[in-house]
């Protein structure tokens, strides 16, 4: 990897953390009205995967993948406006958080219904295949979402046609309060891949180098016609399920253990080993991301609150007006 790339990756890790931390703070201050689902602690997964993509590849993020929006190219200003529910958000205020995608950057906005984006990603990948475009679709989902029927239907279909899709599971050991042992009877959800006739792979989601290696392999496989991959990244969310959740269902020790595996600190150690001036980098990047997020908040706050009647817009592409 080039130094530039290694620094860029560091920038993304830090930007995501800064952005999400700010959103959490704004939420505590009562400035955000919708649910906030922090991905703090999981940054290496979205950075590792999205950084390996081309701009015309599509991603299908779920509720905890705000970072994927950023790395895939979404404008931080608009993303913040989206979270504020303002007119400059991707949804124009019609919904909040990650329910509005950014089509100009090939980012799909999910519904709340976990797992339901996977069939959509499969359909997108089918189009790439039959139109012989060497593009790839990435469907993100938590290990909790993996229990949904839609996930099965999508994976089975993708297997049949060897579609250029990566099923990217962020296994953070909890679905809201529910621990993995109440969610499935296996260690690795990726063990399901064999039942669909494609590759399963497991990696540490807190180690950016590992994620990048596994993601690159999976994306390459998809792009060259070798079919889907079920890539499972083991990771952990520091915050509760949403900012309202005090997460009393898990132990302090567990959190501390995982904090000691922080993906950003790990990357800093790696950069240090590469003999870069980490102190300088930290400061420089810190200022840069703070500025971006400051600007995003200012932009979002200045963005107009939609007016009532706008609720009737964007329902139909070709509305039929009543006679």
């Amino acid at each position, binding site marked *: 990897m080039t130094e530039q790339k290694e620094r860029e990756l560091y920038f993304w890790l830090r930007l995501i953390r800064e952005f999400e931390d700010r959103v959490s703070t704004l939420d505590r201050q009562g400035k955000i009205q919708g649910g906030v689902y922090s991905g703090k602690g999981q940054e290496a997964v979205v950075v590792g995967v999205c950084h390996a993509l081309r701009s015309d590849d599509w991603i299908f993020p779920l509720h905890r993948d705000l970072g994927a929006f950023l790395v895939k190219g979404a404008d931080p200003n608009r993303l913040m406006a989206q979270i504020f529910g303002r007119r400059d958000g991707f949804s124009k205020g*019609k919904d909040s958080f990650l329910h509005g995608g950014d*089509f100009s950057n090939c980012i799909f906005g999910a519904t709340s219904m976990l797992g*339901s984006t996977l069939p959509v990603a499969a359909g997108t990948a089918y189009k790439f295949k039959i139109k012989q475009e060497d593009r790839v679709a990435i469907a993100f989902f938590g290990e909790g979402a993996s229990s949904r029927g839609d996930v099965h239907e999508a994976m089975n279909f993708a297997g049949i046609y060897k579609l250029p899709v990566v099923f990217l599971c962020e296994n953070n050991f909890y679905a809201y309060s529910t621990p993995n042992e109440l969610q499935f009877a296996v260690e690795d959800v990726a063990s399901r891949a064999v039942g669909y006739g494609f590759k399963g792979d497991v990696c540490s989601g807190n180690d950016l180098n590992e994620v990048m290696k596994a993601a690159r392999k999976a994306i390459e496989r998809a792009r060259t016609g070798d079919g889907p991959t079920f890539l499972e990244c083991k990771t952990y969310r520091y915050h509760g399920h949403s900012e309202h959740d005090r997460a009393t269902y898990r132990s302090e020790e567990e959190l501390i253990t995982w904090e000691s595996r922080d993906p950003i600190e790990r990357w800093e150690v790696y950069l240090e080993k590469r003999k870069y001036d980490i102190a300088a980098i930290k400061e420089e990047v810190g200022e840069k991301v703070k500025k971006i997020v400051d600007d995003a908040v200012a932009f979002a706050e200045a963005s107009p609150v939609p007016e009532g009647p706008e609720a009737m817009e964007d*329902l139909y592409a*070709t509305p039929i007006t009543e006679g």
Partner: protein
Amino acid sequence: MPVTYIQAINQAMQEEMARDENVMLLGEDVGILGGAFKASEGLLERFGSERVLDTPISEALIVGAGVGLAIQGMRPILEMQFIDFIACGFDQIVNMAATLRYRHGGQTSCPIVIRGPCGAGVHGGVYHSQNPEAWFFHVPGLKVVAPATAHDAKGLLKAAIRDDDPVIYLEHKFLYRRIKEDLPEGDHVVPIGKAALRKEGRDLTVITYGSPVHAVMKAARDMASEVDIEVIDLRTLLPYDWKTIRESVTKTGKVLIIHEARLTGGIGGEIAARIAGDLFEYLDGPVMRLASKDTHNAFAGPMEEYIIPNQEKVTEAIRKLAAY
């Protein structure tokens, strides 16, 4: 040469797939078999297996993949082998497809057509006779059509395929091979959102759609000496053609709504309520409704006849309103 209702559906798909290479068909047994009812006969041979896709038995996948294709510029037709199975893809329709454009603030559209055989009268029993339109009628972002003639079956399907919004296309299996018509030459499209005034009349208005249209037309003919009936075939259910309804009801002052879907919670309730609310002063009698009884569609013949609005009940209901 006269064409059956199901041939009309086949023609519409053939012509649209020939016209636009982004039109495609996904569903169970739509390819090799040509569809359980042969609606897609010949399509696989003509357009190839990439565009005519025999899917696994996965209705949620069919709809969801359809959305994924649609956002990439394709125009998928999604077949439910029987429309009853639409319940298995329900979330993908009402939450994924119907809100796609809305939650993206207009960045995208969702040109999918979900079609499949609906309706009773053929001893299909509880799971092969359903009329699910009311569920989707309550969901903004969707359009719902229900042709009653071969002419409309073809023209509305072509319109639905070209439409940029998700369209639920309800084809009535009772009509598949029971009606036959000569169709217009050339590119024959029936616009979504426009009802058909099947017959003008002065005494009362019957509003209907789908299979009962034929019973109503027969009644109108048979009773011509007694009562002069105006017959509206809605064709599009969502959004329904209020202008045509209003003009008719303000003229006749009496109205009967007939559908094969069951009464309670059926779309006849909405239309009757709208008429009773907005056209109250024009009404010379109660807004009447005739629909299937509030039960599942039982299998045995006498029960099914008891449930559905057959010819006898249609005639009787019209007579009752006329006498009011």
